[in-house]
Structure formats: structure tokens, C-alpha cells
């Protein structure tokens, strides 16, 4: 018999866990995006060894399971003097994992910026910093937002792995609940609901953001040219 009262009884613990999940996810996404952006920029430099190193990093991260990376960081870290708290390791691990994917998303976005828009800025004497901030990044946002939101949704679900290194996030709390009550079905149901809720919020926000950054891309209206021509000639 389904005992939803259990979810209420464990409510505070679950909400705390949910909070930790959101914290790890948010901080992990932020680190991943910042690091991914920096990696993408460094990869544009005409320094071959640097490019190889970054490529190797991305290949290794993408080619190995997140679980193993996290173990290496948390359990293997101390052997090279890197002692991290579980939550810190979880956030950092998530950030490193995400950075490889974000770097690739940003690289695609960077390459998709029309060359002419950059040349126009160069020909006006704008510096690379200005061009990056004012021309390239806004253009990149337009083409990469769907992929960024997608990656963020994937990362919400990767947070469950953090429970394995004892980060007290939602999965961890849920497992505790299951172990104490043997209410496996309720636990799994509750968990699905929480993650679904999070992903739903992320994708809704993503759609809004997408609408916002692409609002200028409405198609040219048929009006305009004829009247304006007259003005120009007048």
C-alpha cells in the first residue's frame, strides 16, 4: 500500500537534500560554464601544445563516467595532497565534468559567429576584448542557449552521483529514507518528482531566456523600404 505520509514525515530532510542538490547543481553549472568558456577561448590561441592539452582534457572527461571522475577526485585526491569535503568535491567534480561539454558547446557557438560581424568590428578599430563582449558573446548566446539549457538539465540528473561520495543531497536523503522505512516505491516516486520538477523549471527558464535573447531576430516586415527610399532621396 502506497504510504505518501512517509514523504511528509521525511519532508524536512528531503527538502534539505533538495536544497543541497540545487546548490551543487547551480555551483557546478557555474563553474562548468566559466571554465568551459575559458577553455574555449584558450583553444582559439595559436599555441599548439595548449590546444592538445585542452583537447585531451575534454576527451578524457567525455570518455569516462562521471562516477569514476568523482571517485578519483574525492578518494584519489588525498594521495596527491588534495583533501576535499564531500560537498566541495561534488561541486568541483560536477564543474569539471560540465566544463568539457560546455567548452564544446561554446566552441560550436564561437565558430558560428558570422565572420563579417567580427570584421566589421575590427575595421572600426575595436579591440578583441570589446569584440568578444559586445559582438561575439551575444551572437553565441543566440545559437547556444538551447544546448546550454540541455546540458544544465543533464547536470541536474548527474547530481545523484554525488550521493556516492556522501554529499547529503536529495538522492542521499532518499536512500536514508528508503533504508529506514523499506518504502522503496515511495522513495523512487518522490525522487522522480523532485528531479522532474527541477528539470521542468530549468527548461521553462531556458525557453524564456531563449525568447529574450532572440527577440531581435523577428523577420523583416514588408513595410519600410519604399517609404524610406523616398526619404533618402529627398
Amino acid at each position, binding site marked *: 500500500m502506497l504510504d505518501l505520509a512517509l514523504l511528509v514525515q521525511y519532508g524536512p530532510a528531503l527538502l534539505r537534500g533538495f536544497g543541497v542538490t540545487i546548490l551543487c547543481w547551480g555551483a557546478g553549472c557555474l563553474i562548468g560554464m566559466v571554465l568551459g568558456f575559458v577553455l574555449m577561448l584558450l583553444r582559439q590561441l595559436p599555441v599548439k601544445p595548449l590546444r592538445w592539452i585542452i583537447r585531451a582534457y575534454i576527451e578524457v572527461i567525455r570518455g569516462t563516467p562521471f562516477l569514476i571522475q568523482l571517485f578519483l577526485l574525492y578518494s584519489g585526491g588525498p594521495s596527491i595532497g588534495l583533501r576535499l569535503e564531500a560537498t566541495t568535491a561534488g561541486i568541483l567534480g560536477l564543474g569539471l565534468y560540465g566544463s568539457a561539454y560546455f567548452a564544446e558547446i561554446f566552441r560550436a557557438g564561437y565558430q558560428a559567429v*558570422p565572420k*563579417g*560581424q567580427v*570584421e*566589421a*568590428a*575590427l*575595421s*572600426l*578599430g*575595436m*579591440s*578583441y576584448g*570589446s569584440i568578444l563582449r*559586445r*559582438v561575439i558573446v*551575444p*551572437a553565441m548566446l*543566440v545559437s547556444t542557449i538551447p544546448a546550454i539549457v540541455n546540458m544544465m538539465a543533464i547536470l541536474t540528473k548527474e547530481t545523484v552521483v554525488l550521493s556516492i561520495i556522501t554529499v547529503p543531497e536529495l538522492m542521499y536523503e532518499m536512500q536514508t529514507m528508503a533504508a529506514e522505512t523499506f518504502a522503496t516505491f515511495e522513495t523512487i516516486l518522490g525522487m522522480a518528482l523532485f528531479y522532474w520538477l527541477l528539470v521542468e523549471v530549468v527548461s521553462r527558464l531556458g525557453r524564456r531566456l531563449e525568447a529574450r*535573447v532572440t527577440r*531581435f*531576430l*523577428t*523577420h*523583416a*516586415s514588408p513595410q*519600410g*523600404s519604399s517609404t*524610406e*527610399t523616398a*526619404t*533618402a*532621396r*529627398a
Partner: protein
Amino acid sequence: MTAVSQTATPPRSSAAGDAVPMVSIRGVGKSFGTNEVLRDIDLTVNRSEVVCLIGPSGSGKSTLLRCINFLEVYDRGEIRIEGKLVGYTEDAPRRRLSNRDLRDLRRNVGMVFQQFNLWPHMTALENVAEALVQVRGMDKAAAAAHARRMLDRVGLAAKADSYPARLSGGQQQRVAIARVIAMEPHLMLFDEPTSALDPELVGEVLQVMRDLAADGMTMVVVTHEMGFAANVADKVAFLDRGRIAAFGTPREVFHGSMEPRVQQFLQTYHERNSF
């Protein structure tokens, strides 16, 4: 705040400046691998002159134009703008100019592109004001006011708040021209400015260019508009396979040139444009 005069056109001539040509191209060559796209080009553009580069596609006109502001790197020879070597230091052996020096050089040279290249996430006004803020260091209000005057000059004051996607090709190109003249360049480069336009929109852009020429702007124009070249240009250079095959006044090139390739090019042009 930087002071900005009402007009974007530099003084028509100054006694000291007249001696140095606006653009001086000497023995310029460029190769893409084994393909020689520019061979031994010599060309002088004086102050307030309009020089049109014409010729078949692939003849190197656009490449030559893009070498003038170093969007394209030339390998041999030298290009000077107001006496300053473009893209390289004066040392021997010459080295590439630092980014900062290159920017200083480029801010006096405006370029108008075939594909307009407006920034789609900025309104017409923001497009024009951007470099005033980023390059000239003007404050935002002053830049916006100046940008508005420039849009007015190309007849688009009413479209200041429109995004490029809402503008016709002709309007976009006029915004692009406003964006350039706002910087008060000494020299303007036009890379087939009307080639991407519907035929009925070509006229409005050419009119703006005529006005600029009449105001004394020095212009180098790559174009397929022979009418514009014939009526507005002071000099016409006909390029063929990376060389200047004919050079002179429009009359000399269009009517006096014995060069068979010029004849053939004009013949083809007339056939394509008659119906």
C-alpha cells in the same frame, strides 16, 4: 567626452596633407599557397578622390581592398595610408604591427561590406553608437546623439530603434554606412556595397555614396555598378588575374582602353544588362 563635429567628413584638403597621398600602394603582392591573387599592384589614391576597382570576379579586387585595412595580409610590397605603413613596422626586416597600432590605423579607415555586417542584436542606433563608445570613448548619451545625426544623414532617423532584421537590405547598408561615417574616417572602403541588394534598393545606397563623394570623402569602391563608376569615380582601375590591367579616368578606361580584356568585360556587362 570627445568633441565631435557636426559633419563626419574630414577637411577637404590641408596644405600640409596634400603632398602625401591618402593611399599609396607600391608593388603589392599576395598569394594563397601557390595561387598568386595579387601581383605587383601599384595604385595611388589622392585626398577626396573616388577610385573604383572593377573587373571580373576572382580578379583580386576585394582582396586588394581588404589589404588596405589589413583585414587581409599582403605578403610583398607596401601599402601606406597618409604615409603610414599598413600592417607592418617600418623596421627591416619588417614585423607585424601590434594589435594596438593596427587599431589606431583602422579607426581612420571605414569599411562597408557586401553583406552589411550589422550586429543583429543591436538596434540601428546602437550599431552606429557602438564604436563611438568602445573606440572613441564617448559617453553613451553623446554617442547616441551623434549616432542619431548620422542616421539622419543617410535618411534613416525614423528607423533608429529598429533591429536590422526589421530593415530592408538597402536600409541595412545605409545604417552600415552611418556606422562608418560616425567615426569620421579619412578614407572609406566599399566592398561591393550593392551586390547583395535587390535591384530596386541599389539606388538608395548609391545615392548616399554619391553624397559622400560630393562632400569630399576619399573612397575606394569595389563595384559592379558601371554607371556609378562612370559618373562618380575620378579614377577607375580594371583588375584582371591579380594585376591592374587598365587605369585612368572613367572615360579613358571605358572608352579609350585598347586592352582586350577590358573590352570583353564591358561587352559582357552590357549584354547582361540589356534586355
